[in-house]
């Protein structure tokens, strides 16, 4: 894995490590590398321990290593939290001279030949004529020096950023140069970086939630309804801050039930509306999702998962809501469950979700994770926009006409058309409520035929890696990223079968692997292997090997390498 490098910032929430991380991400990207940035932070506004880690490489990467070559900390707590993640021969940079190292930490530092660098960033900032608040910039510049990249690239990024703020750019520039040129630097600090990428530097960096937001805009969503809940909230922020450019109607609802009902009402009237939430909010929406199912109203909800039941660990990652998405909600009704893995497929699959909801007139649940929602991915460009497919058909005698493929005609209300009632009551073809046994059977069977039609039209899971590989991981969501990093950047001979479309479950490709006696390993960010359970239910196959992680952290590269040892 020596074609990748990692820098981690540690500090309290509120000390500005996000800004540091974003600036460094951009400057590294502009220097010709592919980056992946990962954040850890507590569920509070001030204090606690937070980190921002930037991994970069000359090849595509989309996950983090557990260890970093450089750790730069802005407070003592984060030093103690993260010191053991510094790689041998790495750097520890800290700006608080009163930091007390434990004996154990001192031993770790000397045994691993780590350079312990006290950087008086405040002093550097003030001596350069800047203000104390600019000391983070001195830190940034010093790091830049240790990796020996072109100062102009960093300077451009930093000054462009501060040009939007009310600060003295001359002072920022002076502090930046002072940090870069400080006599604290010694030649032995210099870090060996991987060679630069041959990719054009004009790549883009965005989070998974940015990808979703842009997909919603591209895909013709005209109303966004949501109640704040980490890690889905940043979709509201992006769509809100761009609402003048897009004209999208934004409504922060009084709760998740309202958000779901607003979306349902807007969809029934014929526009495209969406809501997003995390586990707790999703639970509140389940009755509405069931209602969308029986009333055959298109509905799209993004479920950005975090770790744990109840409130759990709100700002940490996990993928324990697959079962809720597939099985949640009362009664039996058709639905589709899709899983995102990165910014790029977030953009495309959310558009696909909108098309499926419209065409099949059912609820679509789009699963993402904190690890995808809030991490930064670099990509050359976004994929092509998907053409909008609404599946809206001509007006018929009956809205809920019994059809062979299970899909009835649905027309958008307009003043020249025949009115109809959408209903959560069991109903006959014209929407009249019914309790008649034959009529109940006819309509429920019609709806379930939609699932067969949908299943026939969904793609099989995607296979990555050498087709001859013996050991093949099977997973969904962010698990894909870490496995792809292993496949693309090491000579480990493994394969990976990735489920984008989770439900209805496609099993042909998987069964082919089972029949070919491959060593299948289930990989999931949850405790019970939820995809594995679903696969067992549908195929009878039980995974003998499982790699499950559920401590709020994503899979790191080392987790997979250790597993393969």
């Amino acid at each position: 894995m020596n074609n990748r490098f990692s820098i981690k910032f540690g500090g309290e929430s509120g000390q500005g490590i996000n800004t540091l991380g974003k600036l460094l991400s951009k400057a590294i990207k502009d220097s010709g590398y592919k980056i992946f940035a990962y954040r850890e932070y507590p569920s509070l506004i001030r204090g606690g321990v937070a980190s921002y880690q930037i991994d970069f490489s000359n090849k595509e990467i989309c996950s983090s290593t557990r260890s970093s070559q450089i750790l730069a900390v802005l407070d003592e707590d984060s030093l103690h939290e993260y010191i053991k993640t510094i790689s041998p021969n790495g750097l520890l940079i800290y700006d608080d001279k009163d930091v007390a190292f434990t004996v154990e930490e001192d031993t770790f530092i000397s045994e691993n030949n780590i350079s312990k660098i006290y950087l008086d960033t405040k002093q550097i900032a003030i001596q350069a004529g800047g203000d104390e608040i600019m000391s983070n910039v001195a830190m940034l510049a010093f790091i830049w020096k240790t990796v020996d990249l072109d100062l102009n690239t960093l300077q451009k990024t930093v000054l462009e950023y501060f040009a939007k703020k009310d600060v003295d750019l001359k002072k920022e520039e002076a502090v930046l140069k002072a940090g870069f040129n400080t006599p604290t630097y010694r030649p032995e600090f210099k870090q060996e970086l991987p060679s630069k990428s041959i990719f054009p530097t004009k790549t883009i960096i965005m989070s998974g939630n940015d990808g979703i937001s842009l997909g919603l805009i591209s895909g013709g969503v005209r109303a966004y309804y949501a109640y704040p809940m980490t890690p889905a909230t940043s979709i509201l922020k992006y769509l809100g801050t761009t609402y003048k450019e897009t004209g999208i109607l934004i409504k922060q609802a009084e709760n998740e039930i309202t958000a779901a009902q607003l979306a349902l009402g807007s969809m029934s009237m014929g526009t495209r509306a969406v809501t997003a939430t995390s586990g707790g909010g999703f639970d509140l929406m389940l009755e509405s999702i069931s209602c969308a199912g029986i009333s055959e109203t298109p509905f799209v909800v993004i479920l950005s998962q975090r770790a744990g039941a109840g409130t759990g660990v709100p700002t940490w990652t996990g993928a324990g809501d697959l079962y809720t998405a597939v099985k949640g909600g009362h009664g039996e009704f058709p639905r589709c469950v899709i899983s995102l893995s990165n910014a790029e497929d977030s953009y495309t699959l959310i558009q696909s979700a909108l098309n499926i909801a419209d065409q099949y007139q059912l609820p679509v649940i789009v699963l993402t994770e904190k690890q995808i929602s809030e991490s930064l991915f670099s990509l050359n460009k976004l994929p092509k926009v998907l053409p909008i497919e609404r599946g809206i058909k001509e007006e018929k005698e009956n809205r809920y006409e019994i059809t062979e493929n299970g899909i009835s005609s649905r027309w958008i209300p307009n003043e020249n058309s025949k009115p109809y009632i959408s209903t959560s009551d069991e109903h006959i073809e014209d929407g009249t409520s019914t309790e008649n046994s034959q009529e109940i059977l006819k309509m429920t069977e019609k709806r379930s035929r939609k699932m067969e039609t949908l299943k026939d039209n969904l793609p099989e899971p995607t296979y990555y890696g050498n087709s001859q590989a013996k050991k093949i991981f099977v997973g969904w969501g962010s698990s894909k990223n870490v496995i792809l990093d292993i496949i693309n950047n090491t000579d480990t001979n493994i394969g990976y079968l990735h489920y984008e479309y989770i439900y209805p479950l496609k099993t042909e490709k998987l069964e082919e692997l089972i029949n070919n006696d491959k060593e299948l390993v289930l990989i999931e960010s949850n405790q019970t292997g939820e995809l594995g359970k679903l696969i067992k239910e549908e195929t009878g196959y039980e995974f003998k090997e499982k790699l499950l992680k559920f401590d709020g952290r994503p899979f790191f590269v080392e987790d997979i390498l250790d597993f393969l040892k």
Partner: protein
Amino acid sequence: MSVNITEYNSKNKPTWCPGCGNFAIHTALKKALSELDISPSQAYISFDIGCNGNGADKINIYGFKGLHGRAIPLAIGAHLANRKYTVFADIGDGGCLHEGLDHLLHAIRANYNITILIHNNQNFALTTGQATATTQQGKEMYGLPDGKPERDINIGDLVLTMNPSFYAKAYSGDPLQLSEILKKAVTHKGCSVIEIMQICPTYNRECTPQWFKEHIKVIDKTANTIENARTFVKTEDETIYTGIIYQNTTIPTFYDRLENRKDIPTELVDEVKNYDISKLLKNFE
């Protein structure tokens, strides 16, 4: 030319108890739509679950029979998608004051341009007579031999507290008045709340048509302040004042306050197409 009132009839026969207030409420609604020349294809109504919701397939206009307590946000979603539609939320005192009380308060606060009909029959009738926040104190109800142990919610007082733009009170035994109120509510630009005292001959036998006749007083003039309006809803005796209790036409609607929609003439339903994001993408470079 008004729309013929029979055009709003569905093929289905009502299933309410003989003497139920819902018959007259439906008639009043159809009459108002007809006189406002709003065709069956130009109106949308979201029904709650309850006896009122059993009227969902008994009227021929666009609509959605959704979930208990949720008629209001469902209607709002439909309204925001296409403001050319006249949108109603139809809900009982149970669904409105219990399961979905939050929605009523936030709808008034946002002042969406919809009309909310609260059927106040003073009980959960469809589940055979449980107490609601408007059930009389001390009255034996389902599972409550000594009556409900909570105090009441006075709908009018609650609505007025939220500084509404339109609040009216009507009575199912006076469909002509209700129809006139409905017309005013539909033409009012904002969130119109109409509380309808509804006869329930099965579970609210105390409030007979005769009882209502003795207690109802039609107000002469709409109050010009919240304070004055309050005198119509908080009475010392049991008098029920009906009519348009309060109206304020100066409060902007939710949609009118959306800065990004100000110069857009189209409705959200007209705007579903692929959008070019290349400009937005520049910020990610």
